[in-house]
């Protein structure tokens, strides 16, 4: 089991007011799954993703990642796990400004202890997302869809166990959005575990399974019967 969550609770305390964001979640995600976490804004889905992505810690409950209890890991250990096992794709791309595409993709390798040729590896990953011709471009010189593909390449460069995508199509036109989702599906077909966070049912349905969240609680966890698929040209089949 890649992810095991038991009674996961997250509360924010502001002076004496306690706000519960996650109220005792339980679920598991296996290696190789493609799961959407879906819910309206304010439902707690982003907080959940931050905890699952080891960017944040739960207030209580157990979170086992890859069989390991994460509770006792210190900040540096969490940073190393993020570096080696997790890839992130954000709605706003979060690329470094005034830096070229290749350097952006190499960034995680800068903090990696693995001994790999960063240049070769980054080029290979960029080619796999169809950006082999954009290596020297600066991030302000490419389109939104291309930016998100750079971000995906960056998430993949360290060969992570799992990729978290937080509203990856939110800032894209529909054609680019479909292309990005196609890439995720291809990655999943190749064996990558992917967790997609979104508020749109249409986007969520690219996954095999949808976990629905509302007010910090799971209100549904079911398989997708009519999985969406792109036709390879940014159109739906």
């Amino acid at each position, binding site marked *: 089991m890649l992810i095991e969550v038991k009674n996961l609770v997250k509360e924010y305390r502001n002076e004496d007011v306690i706000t519960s964001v996650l109220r005792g979640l339980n679920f598991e995600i296996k290696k190789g799954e493609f799961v959407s976490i879906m819910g309206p804004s304010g439902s707690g889905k982003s907080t959940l993703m*931050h905890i699952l*992505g080891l*960017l*944040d810690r739960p207030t209580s409950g157990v979170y086992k990642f890859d069989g390991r209890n994460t509770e006792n890991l210190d*900040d*540096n250990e969490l*940073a*190393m796990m*993020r*570096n*080696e096992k997790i890839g*992130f794709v*954000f709605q*706003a791309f*979060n690329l*470094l*400004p*005034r830096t070229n595409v290749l350097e952006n993709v190499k*960034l*995680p390798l*800068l*903090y*990696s202890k693995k001994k790999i040729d960063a240049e070769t590896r980054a080029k290979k990953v960029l080619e796999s997302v169809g950006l082999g011709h954009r290596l020297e471009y600066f991030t302000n010189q490419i389109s939104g869809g291309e930016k998100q593909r750079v971000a995906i390449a*960056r998430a993949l460069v*360290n060969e992570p166990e799992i990729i978290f995508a937080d509203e990856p199509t939110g800032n894209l036109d529909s054609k680019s959005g479909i292309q990005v989702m196609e890439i995720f599906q291809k990655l999943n077909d190749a064996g990558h575990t992917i967790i997609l966070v979104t508020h749109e049912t249409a986007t969520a349905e690219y996954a095999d399974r949808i976990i629905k969240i509302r007010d910090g609680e799971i209100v549904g966890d079911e398989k997708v019967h009519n999985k969406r698929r792109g036709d390879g040209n940014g159109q739906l089949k």
Partner: protein
Amino acid sequence: MASNKVRTFLTLLGIIIGVTSIMIVFSAGQAVNGLLNSQISSFGTNIVETEVKVPTDKKKSGTSGEISSAVSLSMGTQITTLTLADMDKIDQLDNVIDSYGAILGQNQITFADQRKTITLFGANASFINIDQSKIAEGRFFTDAEDRSLAKVAVIGSKVKTALFGDSDAVGAQVKIGNLKYEVIGVMKERGAAGAGLDFDSYVYLPIRTLQKRVLGINYVLYLVSQLKDPEQSDATAQAITGLLRDSHHITPDIDPATGQATTNKDDFRITTMQEMIKTLSTVTNAMTILLLAIVAISLIVGGVGIMNIMYVIVSERTAEIGLRKAVGARYADIMGQFLTESVLVTFVATIIGVILGVLVSWLISVGATSQGIDWQFGLPFYSFIVAIAFSLLCGIAFGLMPARKAARLDPIVALRNE
């Protein structure tokens, strides 16, 4: 940093000015020291000077005593106890090679139809060996001429120009007072030698000639002794003190606090050049340190500027920091990144400051030299080390807090900041 060149440059300016000032202070300190040393060396470093002084009644010696002595002398008090006989005794001391006595007088000198009031400088024949003065033409007078009260004169370069112009002076007859003297030599130009002495406009006479034939006295104003070993000058000064107290019949007061003999009853004062150089370099070093302290403050102000801009940069790059943390940067990675940046920026400013400082120091020396001041351009090697080390220290010290702020950012908060 590179993205906002004007802002970066303005920030660097503080450090640049600070480092430039440090270099200028170091260079000026060295130049002033050199200037003073060369002035003192023009008298010779291996000499001890014994000059007359008015004894004070007060128990305390030191500054106030010396001031009252100078005042008394200027008001016409004559101390007549220091003589050439004292000099002969001093010459017996082991560490003394030779000495000369000197006395000054004023009289009129006449050549052809020209008449001038000049300063007469009487000295022993050994003056030319002990003093830094050189003969340009002819020769200096001899000890035999001195003892026989010969009517010979050696004239300073300015006197030569004033009286003779380009024509030959050696061999000419001049009248000093009512007596005719033969000019036997012309001194080489020496330049101003501090203390307001202008050796170039003196007329040099054998000391006994001046004492007996012109002034009608038999004392001297001061004695200058040349030493074998300058390191022993303090001991020699002590020996001369004892010797003169003996011959002048002075029983010194004892300072009850220290049990040491005081100098207030003495009618002479002894100065060693070693002592003068030491005192002067203490003063210039103290000045340099004081100036450096002031300049260091300006560098600290520059450092605060760096800290300010680093805080701005950290907040501008919050999203970047968040991303770096998300992809695995640890506390130390972020800390290192921002510290490196502030040190790098400071380093660039330091290098510019050092170059500017050297340039300005050089310009100052060129300017001063063209005004006739002996201002040597030079920077001690340690000044580069001090300037670079101190400014890099500023870079680290003032980069530390902003870098810590960056490294401590919560990645989630940072990521939201897009």
